[in-house]
């Protein structure tokens, strides 16, 4: 019931956010002074070409009418056609989305596993050498941008010790092993900042919770250390960490743009970058719309997770 309530509340916020952000996205595209003829033909485009293609892509209609048509079409899966290649944008996104989602999902998994292990370990040894080491490493990792981490990982694991490829992508249909081999370095590069932040938040939350009387009481009743942490402390101490993780999901999706460029991966980020460089407004608008939708969906999921994790707190992000 609380989870349903959380979904409802998050969805109520998500709808206006979606409309406002898509309006801004569409508006920026319209203000960019780009047109399909310039995108396709460059300086050789005549005024007749410009008028013809503007009419073909509906750009001679009023702005609001175009926005309403665009957003209505988007709900049916139609994001228009590329001005440059004339390929449907939805089709291009459909081909590249799995790449970006794979990187983001693996980065998220790594961030959760590494961050949780480091955070829990540091909290259980608060004040000890492991805690101090985790704090120092997290502080260092937080200052390293994903593209620097990516380049460093390529130098170390693809050049000096060539165990992973320096770039490219293999779909899972060609084998899970090769697929993971190509994903691991970009995912690690993308996850370091999130893992560090998660570890710090979890450590702080858990140290406070482990001092609570209900945790000490569980110890006095004979509960083992593992059940104390996972049965009582983690659920109550993980709230801020989950909320922070919710804020990191959009960064993981957005960060894929840089990581895909560094690792030459044919993902959503690369599509958006190429689209922007070519002045291909429908491609940029389409990828941004999908990115916005992903961020909103992840926000709803985080709220559900928080509602399930801590029913007594009513906390959401």
């Amino acid at each position: 019931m609380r989870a349903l309530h959380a979904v409802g509340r998050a969805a109520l916020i998500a709808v206006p956010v979606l409309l406002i952000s898509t309006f801004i996205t569409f508006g920026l595209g319209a203000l960019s002074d780009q047109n399909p003829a310039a995108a396709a033909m460059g300086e050789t485009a005549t005024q007749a070409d410009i008028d013809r293609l503007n009419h073909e892509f509906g750009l001679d209609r009023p702005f609001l009418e175009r926005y309403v048509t665009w957003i209505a079409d988007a709900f049916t899966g139609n994001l228009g056609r590329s001005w440059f290649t004339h390929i449907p944008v939805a089709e291009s996104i459909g081909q590249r989305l799995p790449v970006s989602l794979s990187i983001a999902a693996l980065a998220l998994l790594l961030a959760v596993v590494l961050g949780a292990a480091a955070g829990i370990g540091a909290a259980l040894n608060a004040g000890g050498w492991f805690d101090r080491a985790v704090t120092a490493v997290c502080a260092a990792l937080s200052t390293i941008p994903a593209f620097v981490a990516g380049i460093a990982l390529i130098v170390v694991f693809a050049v000096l010790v060539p165990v992973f490829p320096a770039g490219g992508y293999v779909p899972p249909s060609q084998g899970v092993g090769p697929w993971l081999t190509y994903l691991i370095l970009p995912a690690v590069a993308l996850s370091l900042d999130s893992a560090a932040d998660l570890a710090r938040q979890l450590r702080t939350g858990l140290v406070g919770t482990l001092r609570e009387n209900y945790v000490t009481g569980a110890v006095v009743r004979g509960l083992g250390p593992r059940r104390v942490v996972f049965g009582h402390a983690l659920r109550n101490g993980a709230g801020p960490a989950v909320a922070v993780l919710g804020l990191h999901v959009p960064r993981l999706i957005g960060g894929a743009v840089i990581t895909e460029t560094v690792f030459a991966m044919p993902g959503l980020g690369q599509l958006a970058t190429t689209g922007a460089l070519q002045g291909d407004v429908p491609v940029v608008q389409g990828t941004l719309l999908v990115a916005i939708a992903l961020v909103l969906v992840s926000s709803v999921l985080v709220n559900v997770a928080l509602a399930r994790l801590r029913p007594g707190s009513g906390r959401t992000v």
Partner: protein
Amino acid sequence: MTAALEADGVEVWLGRRAKSRILDGVGLTARSGEIVGLIGETGSGKTTLARAIVGLAPLHAGTVRVDGTPVSGLRGAELRRFRRTGRVQYVFQDPLRSLDPDVTVLDSVAEGPAIRGDGRAADRRARAVAALEQVGLDPALGDRLPGRLSGGQRQRVTIARALAVDPRVLLLDEPVSALDAANRNHVLRVLDRLRREREVAIVMISHDLGSLAGIADRIVVLYRGRVVEEGPAARVLLEPEDPYTQRLIASVPSIDGPRPTYARSTR
């Protein structure tokens, strides 16, 4: 009455030097069915003594025995095994912080039997319901989260949780200090019934000398980590011998001038 709890020569040091000593050779005995009041100013070592008894504060010296069995030397898995018997239960001072905010009342109370591995889940719930009824709480409250209970109800839940594992020794840290008069009397009646009907040895840490006067058999006075006086409750409260105890009792606030007297009620 046999001694359910015997603490002898208990020393607790905060650091490695002798001047960090916060308990200095403290002895405390509680027999089955006896209520011992532990009094002293803030920082005198009352809570540390209770924590030392349940193994939360390491002993520098001394022993703690429960039903004649030494428990102060237990460590790790051995200590956990002893704790799971539920023979010694500790009720913390702040009932709100003593209950997991995201665990329902019934699940909290049933946790002790669950840790011990008593019966099936249904049996443990039945036991939890019985414990709630023992402290005068409606079992219908069992589905609530602690945040939706009053302070008095929470305090009784923490006592019910301790009772659910049939303790031999119950350590209560300021169990009535945050309660209004009606709730305080209710909790005191519950404790009185426990010692009479189940012969539980109760150690009650309290600043509320009025409550102790009404219920305690013996009073132990702690001052700067040492026992300065102990004896029958009426004697200690009415005719204190140690100057510190005299000052402590004289410091009880009074509205109309004369110092209140503490006469232990007949049971």
